Structure formats: structure tokens, C-alpha cells
């Protein structure tokens, strides 16, 4: 098949869990990578080496281990900055996941500062957002009197841009949207939307949780008016560990935002009466950060860079095209979202009328096939398509065509098991 990663077999050997044997001696077929990705040995080994040889607290420790741990942590920041083409490495803030990054923004906008949000102001999101890019804004609006608005969706799972000029207007303070949908797979025209938002002076935040694993990202080379002001992603979806995420933000903006969490590392000086804060990125990294996790994430983005994000993207597209074809051959199966692989990411949600997604997932699971069933933290998008839940398969750089075949076969079996003809 064209477009697959060269040496896919060798690449798969990098991921120890792919050799896992499940109940009844079934080999694992992991098609839940949009939920969390598996980890290559080099990420695990890097973390082990850090814990066994270099573990110390950072910044504050003056001894040799402290210097080593600090260097490892800050090197990881350099690696992440390179991975997304950040204009300035100090614009990279380590968070615990992208959910924290989104909340960091929504939360700080509630407090006095040049970007404070209040009654009459509007925040724009979309109907295909992950709950993590909905709830923080609902809370902000509830707490400040601002108004939440959103792009609707077309029947084929794209953003309905017909009212963009009305939706994004001079009252708009923030436009926060997902780059690649975790449910529909849709790749959104984020440059075009950013341009419109910047025309009215709104901030643009991109949820790149699904984009960062799949698309090459180069912030520095984006046209100024299309570059987001902030972008977040999460470590565990880019073959890194849990417990670490990334919030990149334009420095001039990060400098203006008030602090989020207060505590150690984020201060310049503290008296009982008053504190001043350290420059970014430290201002937003209160407390002992996820050190070994950041180090693991550094190894993860290095791993992806060695494979080449262009190659990863091409692989994802090839597998997605193959999967769309296979899935659509299953009688009755309906794909939610775009069906053109070149226009979408690798998460494919679908329904099979007559079998509930849980039941689909369970039957597949007994065959060793791991997919997700439920609302995928995107209830409003499900509601938009008149379903309460769906089944989702999501591939990644280690997915093979044979695994897709097994999925399709499993779905046929599921249909017959539940007596559909």
C-alpha cells in the first residue's frame, strides 16, 4: 500500500505493548490512539534513565543531579519548541495536559488585565469541540457575564462557516477551536478563521490535541495573521507519557496574562504582603513541574521527528483511506464526519443501526480489537448528528492495513452476532 511508513514492522517493534497478548491468546489490535497513543521503548527508557540516574528537583537545586535534571527538563522544552516551530522556546509552557492549558487561558481571562473578559464580550467555539474546550468557556462566561457562541456543523461534519462574519465580530474576545476533531476527524480551516478573528482583534486558541500527533506544525512559518495566539496539545497522544501537556503562547500575550496557579518556581520575589512573578515560561509553571514526564515528552517528539512528521501524516492518510473504504463496505454502517481521507484526521466514528456502540466495542474486544465506544468527550457533536454515542476507531503511525482488515471482519461478525442481516 502506498504511503505507509517505511519499515513499519521495525517501527512496530519499538512499541513493546504491541506484542501484548490479551485474553484467549488474542494479539492486541490497538485502534484507540486518538484516546491515548502507545509509547516507544525509547520514551520509556529515557524516563527510566532519568529516574535511576538523574532525578532531582530542577531550577532550585545547585548540585550535580540538580544541574542534570534542570538541563534535561529545559532540553525537553527546546525539543518541543522545535517540534512545533515555536518562534521562541520560552513561549513553551509545560502543563499537565491540554485540558489544563485551555483552562489556564479561560481562567486568567477572568481577572484584571488587558484581555479581561466581561459582560458584552463574546467567546466563540464550535459544536465539534472536545468537552475540554467547551466547559472552561462555559465556566468563564457564567462567572464573568460574557456570552458563549459557536459555529454549527454541516451535515457532512464540517464547520458551518456561512455566518462567520456575524459570529466573529467586534465583541469577540477569543476564538478557541479544534484543529482536528477527535470525533469527526474533520481538519478545520484554522488559518482562515484566525485571519478573521485577528481582523476584529480577537485572540485565537487552537486545540491541537489531535493535530500535533498527525500533522507537521511550524508556527514560525505561518503567515502572521493566520498564526494562532495560543496552541495546546497533550503529551500522551504524541507517544509521550501522561501527566504532561504543552501550551504554546505568543510571548507578548503570555507576558500580559495574569498568573494562573501561584507557588514555587513562578515567583520573582515573595513577601507576606506581595509577590512579583518570574518571566514566562516559569510564570505559568507553579510548583514542581512534571519533570520526568517532560523529559519523556522530549524523547517522544524526537522520536516523531526522526520518523518525520510528513511521513507520519502520509501513513495516517493511507490507513485512514483504507479504513474508510473498509468500513463503508459494512452493511448499514454510517460514518460520522467527512469521508475524504485527504481532508481529515485518523479518528473515524461510526454507527451501526441496531447495535449499540458498547456492544460493538465488547464484541471487538473479545477479538483483541480495542476501539472506543461512547461520546468521546464530544456530546454536543453527537447530539448534532442525532446519536447519543458512537464507535470510534483511531489509527496511528504503528497501525497496519491488516489491523484494519481485522476490524472490518470484527464488525461483520458483530452484525451477525446480533442477528442483523
Amino acid at each position, binding site marked *: 500500500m502506498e504511503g505507509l511508513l517505511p519499515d513499519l514492522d521495525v517501527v512496530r517493534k519499538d512499541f513493546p505493548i504491541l506484542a501484548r497478548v490479551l*485474553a*484467549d491468546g*488474542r494479539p492486541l489490535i490497538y485502534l484507540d490512539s486518538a484516546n491515548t497513543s502507545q509509547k516507544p521503548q525509547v520514551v520509556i527508557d529515557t524516563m527510566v534513565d532519568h529516574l535511576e540516574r538523574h532525578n532531582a528537583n530542577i531550577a532550585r537545586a545547585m548540585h550535580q543531579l540538580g544541574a542534570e535534571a534542570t538541563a534535561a527538563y529545559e532540553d525537553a522544552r527546546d525539543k518541543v519548541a522545535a517540534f512545533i516551530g515555536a518562534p521562541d522556546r520560552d513561549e513553551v509552557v509545560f502543563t499537565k495536559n491540554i485540558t489544563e492549558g485551555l483552562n489556564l487561558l479561560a481562567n486568567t481571562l477572568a481577572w484584571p488585565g488587558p484581555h479581561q473578559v466581561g459582560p458584552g464580550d463574546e467567546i466563540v467555539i464550535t459544536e465539534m469541540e472536545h468537552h475540554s474546550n467547551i466547559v472552561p468557556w462555559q465556566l468563564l462566561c457564567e462567572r464573568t457575564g460574557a456570552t458563549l457562541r459557536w459555529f454549527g456543523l454541516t451535515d457532512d461534519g464540517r464547520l458551518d462557516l456561512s455566518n462567520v462574519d456575524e459570529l466573529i465580530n467586534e465583541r469577540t474576545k477569543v476564538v478557541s477551536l479544534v484543529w482536528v476533531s477527535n470525533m469527526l476527524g474533520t481538519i478545520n480551516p484554522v488559518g482562515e478563521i484566525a485571519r478573521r478573528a485577528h481582523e476584529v482583534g480577537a485572540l485565537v486558541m487552537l486545540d491541537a490535541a489531535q493535530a500535533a500527533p498527525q500533522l507537521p506544525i511550524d508556527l514560525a512559518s505561518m503567515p502572521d495573521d493566520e498564526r494562532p495566539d495560543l496552541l495546546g496539545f497533550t503529551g500522551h497522544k504524541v507517544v509521550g507519557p501522561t501527566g504532561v501537556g504543552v501550551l504554546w503562547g505568543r510571548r507578548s500575550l503570555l507576558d500580559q496574562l495574569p498568573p494562573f496557579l501561584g507557588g514555587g518556581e513562578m515567583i520573582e520575589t515573595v513577601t507576606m504582603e506581595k509577590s512579583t512573578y518570574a518571566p514566562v515560561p516559569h510564570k505559568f509553571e507553579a510548583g514542581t513541574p512534571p519533570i520526568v514526564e517532560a523529559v519523556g515528552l522530549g524523547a517522544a517528539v524526537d522520536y516523531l521527528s526522526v520518523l518525520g512528521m510528513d511521513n507520519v501524516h502520509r501513513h495516517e492518510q493511507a490507513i485512514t483511506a483504507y479504513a474508510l473504504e473498509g468500513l463503508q463496505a459494512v452493511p448499514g454502517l454510517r460514518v460520522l464526519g467527512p469521508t475524504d481521507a485527504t481532508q481529515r484526521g485518523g479518528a473515524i466514528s461510526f454507527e451501526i443501526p441496531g447495535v*449499540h*456502540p*458498547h*456492544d460493538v*466495542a*465488547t*464484541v471487538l*474486544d*473479545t*477479538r483483541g480489537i480495542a476501539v472506543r*465506544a*461512547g*461520546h468521546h468527550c464530544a*456530546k454536543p457533536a*453527537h447530539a448534532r448528528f442525532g446519536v*447519543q*454515542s458512537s464507535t470510534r476507531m483511531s489509527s496511528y503511525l504503528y497501525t497496519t492495513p491488516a489491523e484494519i482488515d481485522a476490524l472490518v471482519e470484527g464488525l461483520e461478525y458483530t452484525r451477525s*452476532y446480533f442477528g442483523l442481516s
Partner: protein
Amino acid sequence: MSTDLDALYQEIILDHYKNPHHKGLREPFEAEVHHVNPTCGDEVTLRVHLEDGPNGQRVGDVSYDALGCSISQASASVLTDLVIGRQVDEAMAIHDEFLTLMQGKGQVEPDEEVLEDGVAFAGVAKFPARIKCALLSWMAWKDATTTAQLEEAQ
């Protein structure tokens, strides 16, 4: 594997799924609750009607509307079969027995005398991800019953 699957999807469960008993929302009722499984979105709206009987309170009716998988739907149906018409304390004992079965990791031998069609859920206990499905309506029923009793007490 197909054996595990068959243990899960017993004929009885599939029958209840296809032809659920006591389904629909009915009057009268003293309490209505809405429970959601936050992780997957399964939902149930459930009403309880309590009656005074010769030996204390009785479950007069349990009516419900549910969105969910075969396990959660069948479980609601079996629940209503088991508790409607019983003394409330008897029904609570059945609830506890069902809970024990579900949380028993497949090690608990179900008592057919008590659980009747509910014994068919024994296989669910081996699928940790599905236990919440089986318990959704049971939890809702307990919540609604407690609420109804509290209302009455006031």
C-alpha cells in the same frame, strides 16, 4: 472468546433487550431521577411509585425510559420484574444481591431464587467496562426510592 461473549450476551439478556418489560414513564410516582453514565453517555430516567401494604411499604411501580446498550436496557427490564410488587426492604435486599454479583469479579455464584433472570448477568462481572452499564438503572432505582421515602417522611 465466543464462549465469554455468549456468557455475556445470554439469551435472556438479549430477550429483555429486544422486548423490555415495564418500559415507558407512568403515573403515579413519588420520585423521578435521571442518571447518566458520564463516561459513555448512557442515560435512564426512572420513576418510583410506593404503596402502603399490609406489611409496610411496597414497590407499586417502577417505570423508566432508557438510552443505552443491550446490557443497560436488559438490566432495567429485569430490575422492574424483580422489584415491582415487593416489599421495599425485600427489593433493597435484591438490589444488594445484584450489586454483590456485579462487583464479584466473576467469583460470586448468583442465587437464582433471589435474582431470577438477573442471574444471566453473572457473565457481565467478567467485563469490568460493562459493569456500570448493568448497574445504571439499579443505582437510579435505589436513588429514586430513597428520595421517595424522604419526601414521604417530610
